[in-house]
Every structure is written in C-alpha cells, then in structure tokens.
C-alpha cells in the first residue's frame, strides 16, 4: 500500500475543508472501508489523503424523508 496521510475531522465542515485543502492531489473520504481499503491493498485506489468520517455524529443517521414518486412508480 502506498503511503498516505490520515485525518479524522470532528465535523462535516472540517471534513469538507480538509478535502478541499487536498484537492489537486488524491483525497478520499473513509466511511466503511469495505471497498476503499480493499482497493488500496490492491493499489487500485492510491489516495494521498484519507479523511476518516466514520466518527461524525452529524452523519450517523439515514434520512428517508423526501419525494416518494420513484418508490411509488416502482410499486406501480
């Protein structure tokens, strides 16, 4: 695996700022890691910066509100 730098921001705003700061290189957000870490082991993904968003309480929910027309269409 290629070297990268790691950061674990404390808010979504901080995470976005870190990503912007590293743009032009190859930053990646780390959420579950199922795909990203696996592909990093194979050198398919070669991130320069890893921004770990797993601990962000702001993202610890699913929002299932919003337009339902797609669901309704699917149900016929």
């Amino acid at each position: 695996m290629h070297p990268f730098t790691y950061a674990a921001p404390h808010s979504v705003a901080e995470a976005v700022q870190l990503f912007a700061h590293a743009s032009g290189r190859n930053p990646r957000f780390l959420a579950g890691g199922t795909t990203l870490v696996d592909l990093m082991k194979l050198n398919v993904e070669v991130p320069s910066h890893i921004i770990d968003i797993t601990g962000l309480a702001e993202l610890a929910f699913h929002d299932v509100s919003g337009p339902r027309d797609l669901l309704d269409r699917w149900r016929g």
Partner: protein
Amino acid sequence: MLMNVFPEQSAHVAADSTSSFGEAGDTIAVEIELNGSIHRLDLDPRATLLDTLRERIGLNGAKKGCDHGQCAACTVHVDGRRVLFCLSLAVQARNKKITTIEGIAPDGDLHPMQQAFLDHDGFQCGYCTPGQIMSAIARVREGHADSADDIREYMSGNLCRCGAYVGIVAAVQSVAGNRD
C-alpha cells in the same frame, strides 16, 4: 424521518486531535483499549487493525483468511459492534474499546458461546471459529430473532469451508435460547 443508526458514536469524540494532516510517512500516536487494558502505539496509517493485533500486540485469535473482507475470520468487536479487522485501519481504533476472542472470558474459562460450539461440534479445522464466535455473540446481543433462518441470515457473512454450518446454527441457537 431521521433514524439514529449509531447512537453510541457521539460519545467518542477524540480527546487527542488528528483533525489535520501530518506529513506522508508520519506515524500517529494512538491509544486503544484492548480487552480491558490500554495500549499506546505509534502506528503507520497504512497498518490494518488485524495486522497490528497479530504482529505488534501478539494476539493471534483473530484470523487472516482472505484479507479482503469476504470471509469474516477476522471479526472482532469495536464498542460492542462486530467489525472486520482486515478492512479497518488501526488508527481508526483510537479511543475505542476492542474485544477480541481472547477477551470474551476470563483466563481458563469458556464463554457460553465457546462451550456451545464445543457441545454442538460447531467446527472442524477451527480456522473460522474465532470469527464465528465473535459474530455469534454480537448476534445474540443485537437481539435478532432466535430462529435457525435468522441465525443463518445474520451469520451469513462468516464463511466456513469445512461446512460446519449445521453445528454452528445449533450452537448459536442453544445460547440464544438460554439468554436472560
């Protein structure tokens, strides 16, 4: 509608900040609570938790089967939830509580799930067994229904190439049925 998926996470805001980038190649100082004792480690960000556990700390219970998140032989608990350690970076365990197969029962004793795997022949070669047992304990704690079908569903990520599945389901079912 908002559903809080990980309500416990807000309790784990890191005391030591890694909220900015260091230089590539830097190690990161991390404190991990492993089976009740605190470990302080300087970690290369590339190190997986599984390699750190096995090669630096010397706990070989969690197994490296595929190293790609497909077999679940490396299943371990982080803050009580089951996690695949081969796909976790060790630095992610900062300030988390980790329990491995070595930490589920006091020395010399067996956890009821370990005893159940013995009683019901829940293994042949035993390579997948630590992961199976860690998944099984979490499954019981998660409170999923106790039917054989539900056990098969919620244990479906744990592969056993010996095919001891019938014994594994029986073992898990016996513990699930006996819980308080």
